[in-house]
């Protein structure tokens, strides 16, 4: 049974069996989630559990008693804190608003009511930050039922106006508080429609305010946020060409006959889909092509005067007659991405079925064959949810483009050192700084290959570590002649006497074989010297994906610490006579105690 195509009632009816089946799959990632609800939360939690299981998580839940969200967060946070949640979701509806102004309220009274309500929720968030210290997800509010007709949204005492203003205040608070994420319940409700959202019979019977359908939509949307907190978002859209990016088959119909552009309704819809893809690229999603065509014919499609997408927008291009799953595998290799990063879009159901069967990690939404619906179907999959949109996201596609130039440059040199020298690399390495914490958390949670321990941390944990004298942290940015690679590496070291245990060492695969790891080691040795640390202890914890760094410490000259029966290995490096290793990278900023 495919979860994505099931109705809420289907899922609930078969919940127990589905749960049993999904729990049986291997390699589920544990996650502890506390739900503090203003209504009865069991049905939502059941659905959330199924969706998260299907997304590869093994969730454990804590639920507040009915409508005890404020008490649990503010008055008795000990119980919640003892549960040690990774994420707290404060799940409230408009019914939980306490300070709705009277319909006759003045502007000043509206202001007072707003501030009171905001203070009440701020107390919840502050208490959770202080006593629980994890990522907090708070939803905003759906629009309430109509009372004054069109005045609802206009007058100071209008309930719709109140909710709109409160939602705006929530957004402003979240903008200044990286540990607070806003779940846009209001948009979820709007997409379903309020007439299919509220369920008054269930409200009076069970204190569940919303329909099963609404609860499933909430579950899917919150699950996407939770996955994003754990860095499990998708990164790459794989697109078919004929009848996906344009109408018709370019090989048969020719460039002049394909449907694209404003001249016909169908052509306009394909143009709109191309615009949507380009907008996704603008927010950090990589675009690639996987098409059954001759390459030169396929590429000619992007010379069409109405083609919004151009060849340079694609980070990888496969047009040939090989099976599509083989092409996907080769795209994954080229971009250094795992298959779980891909969303595969193809109008041909046979191709979709093939990819879905061969590669269960790839998301294969059933887009049907009507291009008019493609954007909303892709949107409904919540594939590209992210915790924060960093400047990095906005320029990611360009980074990959420049990588292609770097690969081309590599071919022209007689030896590798000469190539590295020509890249004119500069590394900026420094302790974790507030402005980079989002990006560091992203990197920590999505890096699988160059990752010595594969420890995952939430943003809140990274913040704590960054501020603690017990830890030595380093993050590194790398710039070269083709541009800025952004923040690409991070180390977390934990002090223990005169030893420093390297809990985390990660690096983005986009800078593999650039000797960035040597620059990081030099900076780490320098940071250790300043703190009178004499020895580095590194460990390698093997996973299915990090074979790349099995010999990392050995290559860096660490000595193996003999231990029996351990999986993985531990290594040490005496720092007394340390001499810098990096030859081809300038380290621009001295690491100081800061």
């Amino acid at each position, binding site marked *: 049974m495919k979860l994505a195509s099931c109705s809420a009632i289907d899922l*609930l009816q078969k919940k127990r069996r589905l749960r049993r089946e999904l729990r049986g799959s291997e390699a589920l990632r544990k996650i502890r989630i506390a739900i503090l609800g203003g209504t009865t939360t069991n049905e939502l939690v059941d659905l959330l559990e199924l969706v998260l299981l299907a997304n590869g998580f093994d969730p454990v839940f804590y639920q507040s008693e009915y409508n005890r969200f404020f008490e649990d967060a503010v008055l008795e946070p000990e119980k919640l804190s003892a549960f040690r949640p990774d994420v707290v979701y404060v799940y409230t509806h408009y019914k939980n608003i306490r300070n709705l102004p009277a319909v006759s309220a003045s502007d000043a009274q509206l202001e007072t009511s707003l501030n009171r309500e905001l203070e009440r929720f701020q107390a919840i968030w502050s208490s959770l930050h202080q006593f629980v210290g994890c990522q907090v997800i708070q939803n905003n509010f759906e629009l309430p039922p109509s009372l004054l007709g069109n005045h609802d949204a206009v007058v100071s005492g209008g309930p719709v106006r109140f909710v709109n203003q409160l939602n705006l205040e929530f957004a402003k608070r979240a903008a200044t508080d990286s540990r607070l994420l806003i779940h846009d319940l209001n948009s979820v409700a709007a997409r379903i429609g309020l007439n299919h959202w509220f369920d008054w019979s269930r409200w009076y*019977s069970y204190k569940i305010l919303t329909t099963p359908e609404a609860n499933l939509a909430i579950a899917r949307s919150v699950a996407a946020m939770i996955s994003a907190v754990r860095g499990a978002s998708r990164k790459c859209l794989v697109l078919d060409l004929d009848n996906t990016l344009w109408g018709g088959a370019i090989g048969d119909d020719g460039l002049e006959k394909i449907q694209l552009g404003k001249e016909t309704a169908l052509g306009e819809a394909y143009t709109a889909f191309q615009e949507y893809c380009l907008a996704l690229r603008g927010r950090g999603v990589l675009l690639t092509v996987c098409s059954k065509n001759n390459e030169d014919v396929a590429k000619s499609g992007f010379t069409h005067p109405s083609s919004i997408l151009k060849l340079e927008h694609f980070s990888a291009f496969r047009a040939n007659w090989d099976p599509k799953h083989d092409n996907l595998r080769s795209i994954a290799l080229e971009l250094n991405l795992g298959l779980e990063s891909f969303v595969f879009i193809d109008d041909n159901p046979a191709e979709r079925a093939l990819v879905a069967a061969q590669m269960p990690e790839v998301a294969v939404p059933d887009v049907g064959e009507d291009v008019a619906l493609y954007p909303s179907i892709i949107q409904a999959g919540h594939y590209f949810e992210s915790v924060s949109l960093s400047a990095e996201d906005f320029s990611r596609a360009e980074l990959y483009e420049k990588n292609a130039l770097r690969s081309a440059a590599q071919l022209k040199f007689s030896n590798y050192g000469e190539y590295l020298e020509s890249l004119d690399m500069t590394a900026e390495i420094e302790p974790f700084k507030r402005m980079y914490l989002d990006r560091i958390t992203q990197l920590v949670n999505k890096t699988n290959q160059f990752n010595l321990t594969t420890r995952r941390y939430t943003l809140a944990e990274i913040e704590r570590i960054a501020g603690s004298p017990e830890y030595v942290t380093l993050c590194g940015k790398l710039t070269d002649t083709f541009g800025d690679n952004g923040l690409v590496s991070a180390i977390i070291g934990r002090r223990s006497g005169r030893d420093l245990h390297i809990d985390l060492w990660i690096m983005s695969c986009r800078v593999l074989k650039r000797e960035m790891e040597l620059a990081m080691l030099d900076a780490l040795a320098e940071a250790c010297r300043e703190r009178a640390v004499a020895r580095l202890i590194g460990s390698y914890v093997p996973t299915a994906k990090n074979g790349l760094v099995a010999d990392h410490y050995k290559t860096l000259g660490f000595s193996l610490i003999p231990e029996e029966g351990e999986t993985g290995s531990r290594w040490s490096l005496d720092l007394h006579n340390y001499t810098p290793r990096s030859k081809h990278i300038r380290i621009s900023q001295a690491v100081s105690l800061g």
Partner: protein
Amino acid sequence: MTSRDQIITEIEPIFQDVLDQPNLKLTPESNALNVEDWDSLAHVTLVGAVERRFKLRFTLAELQGLKNIGDMANLIQKKSTK
């Protein structure tokens, strides 16, 4: 017109699914006390699934008056023939 017993036969698989008891047999006298795992949480799902199966909605008053499966089948019969 569908008989009461016929309706109970049609409800049965829903209960088997929701309560995860493939061999569960329902009788007109079955109720939340004598059917294992039929708790308030399962009840929410059972009502939703039965409503969808017979394409109807129970009113609050009707829900409150249900004592056992026989009542539920009678009610479904009445609402379906209107």
